[in-house]
């Protein structure tokens, strides 16, 4: 299956899907679940393509134009925060009621199914349980916040975060330099989308900034907050991840002294430089706090304000 070869690192999911396609026991409803940016949508598309082109010899032509009549992708409207009931009742249900034009199946992909509204999700239930015999519905969700009743109607296919090795490979094929790919892969924490995002940034410079921030906060305490927050402004979303990583490393190094467990080797230098006993409890609290603050960047909040909060969290961890 040449299409599915484009998906990297999701061997188990692919194995299940390939087996189902070969054995002819394709279920009527699938739920692809896993973190953001690990290839769920790509897999869904590619699997749909391979199914359709097996049944329809002209499929390649239609697919190239992105308009195969037997493939429907339901997405959230850009100006909406949720997938509403209308999408299900007005788009999906009538579409599924029609027989396939060319292929043997009609495949509907519902993207971001975790954003289905309460009404939307409930409207989907009956269709999802007993759709027409030719229908295949693929739900794609980043978070496991779906209704119990929805999950129970689907075959759940789990997508895992990608190992750093695979991320690196993917980044390399996108023309990112080897060194950078390595760094970005580590920061991506298993998500291609994030790793790619970081692959385009000046990583090493930002690392220096992050390390610098921790060291001045550790040395000067409150007096350094202003400077640290200003420095973060260079690329807040990236640096906050780095700060998180560094704090975690410090915590690990502080209590184990193992270099191998660290994500960034430089973190141990900070521990040595600060030369004081770190309070594990405080470090943990700071990391949790930063984890929460990280989410705020995507909302409508002044980033400098968040930076200051982050810096206070780091400072509190070190004093």
């Amino acid at each position, binding site marked *: 299956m040449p299409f599915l070869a484009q998906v990297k690192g999701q061997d188990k999911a692919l*194995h*299940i899907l390939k*087996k*189902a396609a070969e*054995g*002819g*026991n*394709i*279920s*009527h*409803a699938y739920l692809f679940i*896993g*973190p*953001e940016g690990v290839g769920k949508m790509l897999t869904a598309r590619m699997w749909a393509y391979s199914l359709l082109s097996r049944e329809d010899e002209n499929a390649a032509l239609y697919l190239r134009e992105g308009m195969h009549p037997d493939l429907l992708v339901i997405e959230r409207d850009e100006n909406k925060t949720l997938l509403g*009931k209308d999408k*299900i009742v007005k788009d999906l*249900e009538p579409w599924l009621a029609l027989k396939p034009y060319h292929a*043997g199946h009609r495949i509907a992909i519902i993207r971001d199914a975790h954003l289905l509204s309460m*009404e939307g999700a*409930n*409207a*989907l*239930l*009956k*269709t999802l349980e007993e759709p027409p*015999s*030719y229908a295949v519905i693929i739900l794609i969700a980043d*978070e*496991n*916040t779906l209704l*119990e009743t929805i999950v*129970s*109607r*689907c*075959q*759940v296919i*789990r997508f*895992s*975060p990608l*190992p750093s090795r695979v991320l690196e490979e993917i980044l390399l094929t996108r023309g990112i330099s080897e060194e950078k790919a390595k760094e970005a892969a580590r920061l991506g*924490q*298993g*998500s291609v989308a*994030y790793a790619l995002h970081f692959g385009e940034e000046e990583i090493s410079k930002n690392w220096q900034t992050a390390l610098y921030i921790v060291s001045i906060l550790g040395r000067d305490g409150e007096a350094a907050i202003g400077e640290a927050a200003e420095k973060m402004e260079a690329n807040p979303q990236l640096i906050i*991840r780095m700060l*998180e990583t560094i704090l*975690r490393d410090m*915590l*690990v190094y502080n209590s*184990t002294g*193992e270099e191998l*467990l660290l994500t960034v080797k430089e973190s141990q230098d900070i521990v040595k430089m600060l030369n004081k006993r770190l309070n*594990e*409890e405080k470090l*943990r609290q700071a*990391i*949790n706090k930063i*984890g929460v603050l*990280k*989410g705020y960047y995507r909302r409508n909040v002044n980033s400098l304000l968040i930076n200051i909060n982050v810096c206070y969290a780091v400072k509190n961890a070190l004093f």
Partner: protein
Amino acid sequence: MSYLALYRVHRPQRFEEVVGQDKIVKALQNALREDRLSHAYLFAGPRGTGKTSIAKIVAKAVNCESPKEGEPCNQCASCRDINNGTFMDVVEIDAASNRGIDEMRDLREKVRILPAQGKRKVYIIDEVHMLTTEAFNALLKTLEEPPSHVIFILATTEPQRIPATIKSRCQIYYFRRLTLEEIAGRLKKVSEAYGMDWEEDALYLVARRANGGLRDALSIMDQVYAYKGERITKQDVLDVLGVVDDVFLAHLLDAVLSRDMKRVIEMLGQALNEGKEAQQLARETVFYLRDLLLYKHLGDKADFYVVTGDNVHFLEEQKGKVDQDALLKALRIMMNSVERLKFSEGNRFLLEMAFLEMMDILSSSPGKLVEGEDEMTGDKKPASGKSKTPVKEKARDEGEKVLWQKILAGVKEKKIPTHALLSQGKFIGIKDDVIYIGFKKGYRFHKERMEERGNREILEEVLAKIFKKPLEIQFIFLDDDQYNDIMVKKAIEYFGEDVVQIRD
């Protein structure tokens, strides 16, 4: 013919095949046999317990040409048509997609028409909790007195969202979650029908994961079957579900208990690299801790969730190392992190932090336990001079604690709001018939309210009862010397600084 999911193929077609809802089946079958079926039913219960299936069986049974003992024959034209979904007089309505008042008005119009094909019209309204208020109200009159040829069956997973006026017009049947045995038994039959060879452990694992829903169980089975083929072991099920097995969890907890941070982090890293999800790992840990807690209390009689068969010996080894309080705290930490992991992408670190926090709590508990044992069986070890004082002090602390609990309990009996105020205080001591009760900074409100006459009198009554003599009460602030300075000084003089100071 395209492939049908197991849970659709194995939808029960007769009352006899329904698993686990014996009472409901019996009631309905009797009603059918004696032709005393009500005109409206409400089926409520969790997912995958048979609501829609039974509704369909009832629809068949009333329209069947040769019903036997209330069972549909599944042979006649009516039964076949209903099974195929082409019978005109059995209407299945998806209330979630058609939830407005217009659809209900439309329904009301159509209800009047006599059945075209069968004996009675059956309306199955599924997911009925999604109807709007107006739609519910539009249905009320029809539901109360429908034409004699109509039966309504409403089905829902959320009965609390159905208006009382609808409920009172229906006969309500509450479906229960299926037990482990029932699900496992059903799975076994299905697997035999397909010639699959399942390990016993694997079957029970699936049954347990299904959490009372047969559809979930069959879904998982379907998936494992698609993944692996005929011969299925426990490991295959674990693979498909993306969970770790109980031995791994046991080792992980061992590492946590021995404060081996390196090993904990390595094990977590290994699991995550193998593609396990952080949230799932946290959830599994919750289950494991729960099993451990149960084992501590019930021994082998406990109903375990993740621990299977011989692996109980891990629990046996671990149960002495933790006390219940620490275990409960650890459980809470893990449950919180399960919630948090739902939304965050910084998965790995969050999970590590949760485990480290748990490590702190769990590994500090055995020390406490040993100390406690020393106290009780004091003669075992000759107490050295060094450890004598803390033990004594501890005993005093304990005594005061018990006394304070007694006072609080007494107050609670008399008036709960007073108890709420008082419980924020701290018992400091009694001197010359005066009892001193401290309040932390920030609890000024509580102190002032306690000083009011009503509350004070209640406390006085309780004290008089406990001490058999009237006591004067003195409330003091503890770490803000701005207030009643003299009283604090006096208290410090009487009871020593370390008692009067409040630690968090």
